[in-house]
């Protein structure tokens, strides 16, 4: 009887100490091997054929931890010309497969365009966008834009020390 009491007391003490120690430790629960919290990965896909006046299907595949993610309460696409010559077209994204959202839209006159997906859920928020060009002049303009974007990449900030 006495031994049992000692065992119970020791177990309780051990459990208490474990809980106390666990409370002292850094909370890394839910982080992956890179130290990232759960997050979404995206693959924004442009139509295979980008042709003026033709309908094209834009799609995005969204995954969480490698699995299709369907948790958005708001999912929409926006398409607009980069020169602002016309207003953006906004449309609700259509879920076409698990974790896959699509949008079909006819592409207007020649120019550089931007397609953007906005997805909001209780846990996540994403807003990836891509450019594409219709017409040879626009293709050259797009190439210049991307070159300029790469050149304008910010140099690494200086380190901090106390």
């Amino acid at each position: 009887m006495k031994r049992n009491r000692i065992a119970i007391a020791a177990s309780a003490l051990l459990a208490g100490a474990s809980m106390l120690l666990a409370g002292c430790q850094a909370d890394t629960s839910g982080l992956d091997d890179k130290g990232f919290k759960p997050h979404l990965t995206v693959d924004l896909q442009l139509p295979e054929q980008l042709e003026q006046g033709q309908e094209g299907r834009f799609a995005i595949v969204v995954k969480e931890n490698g699995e299709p993610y369907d948790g958005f309460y708001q999912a929409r696409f926006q398409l607009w010309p980069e020169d602002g010559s016309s207003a953006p077209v906004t449309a609700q994204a259509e879920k076409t497969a698990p974790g896959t959202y699509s949008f079909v839209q006819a592409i207007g006159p020649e120019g550089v365009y931007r397609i953007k997906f906005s997805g909001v859920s209780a846990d996540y928020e994403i807003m990836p966008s891509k450019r594409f060009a219709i017409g040879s002049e626009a293709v050259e303009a797009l190439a210049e834009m991307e070159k300029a974007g790469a050149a304008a990449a910010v140099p690494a900030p200086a380190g901090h020390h106390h």
Partner: protein
Amino acid sequence: MSTQLAGATPGTKARQKGLLPALYQSVWRWHFYAGIIFAPFLILLAVSGGAYLFKPQIEGQLYKDLLTVREVGQVRMSPDALSAAVRKENPGLAIQSLTLPSDARSTVKMSVVQGGVPTTLYADPYTGKIAGTLDSDKTFSAVFKKLHSQLLLPGTLPNRIVELAACWGLVLTVTGLYLWWPRGRFSVWGTLLPRLGKPGNRLFWRDLHAVPAFWLSILILALILTGLPWSGVLGGQIDKAANATNTNNPPYAYSFMGAPESVTRAKDIAADLPWAAESLPVPASAPGGYVPITVDEVAGIADRQHVQRPYTITMPSGETGVYTISTADAKPWDSATLHVDQYSGTVLTDVRYEQYGVMAKLITLGIAFHEGKLFGIANQLLGLLACLGLILISAGSYVMWRKRAPAGKLGAPNKPREKKASIGVLIIMAVLGVLMPLVGLSLLAVLALDWLVIRRVPALRRWFAV
């Protein structure tokens, strides 16, 4: 110094027989030598630290025209619009980071690079005008911080000297408390209250050294201990201990501790343009890569993730970099560091104070206390009190020493005849040397100097009272 032996001079009362007097004598010798060597550094640390404590108030006045707007407008420009306005005024400017203020009267601080020179720029968020620039390395706080951490000198050595002085500051405080500890009949005067009746005599200076040192000892110990986690050698050991016990920060807790890479990869068509390189016809259409999200969108993410202003948004470093959102000047418990994928806007890491391990929490609170940021003006005044006290204690000890030292002699306390005491204190010092590696190294250097030089030269032996 104890009340009993306060008036002791080398070779008189301190030569009393017995282990305890010998122990006292030995501790006094260590306290004396450490004080002679490190008091000037401690004065320097106190002066620079005392000034740095009031950085917000002093810089607020010194750089008032840069830090505050001339007139608070109706609507603040968005970060992107403000950045564009600043770039228009200064073409070729690369913005590395911008700090969005919480106060409506504050300008927006930007870390920029122009012509390869890093500069801090302040812009008016209502007009988009540049209020002015500051050389980040030459601000009031930067100069005093450099004095406090590396004596205004370049390289690692000055920083190690500062760490060594701080560690010996700990030893001085502990040995000083031992010397102060009342022995024999207790008297309030000379123990808890200074005897200032005869200004200028040795007792006056002794009490001006020992009594404030006792009252301020906890504060001084706290300030030294809270500064050491940032030191080069001992700080590294503390970090290792925290990592080994998993009581440190989770990964990516601080913006300056490195950032991950974006998980979304930009597809750069500019890098692969066969038609441009090989004189082929330009295609009729082309897909582009991902476009980075805007700073406005990053600010929106920060606000929706309840990051408290002021916070700093640091731009991605290159095509694979991430946006970093980090709180600036926040109370420790409000601190947040987030890394955001620059193409998708997904939050990859989000580390808050609640997730820190116990050591990281203590260190973070300690640093805030050390810098006078933990509990406002009271914290600053407490820090100032410790700094002024440390200056008084250190300067007073020099006056006391000069008054006591015989002409032509160092005036060091004599070595106790009881070897057990010397060895005992040496063992304690060795333990401290293990705990504080730079103290250990300096002990080895002192012992080597003692055995190889001082003991072999009679004049030096006499001068050092060996």
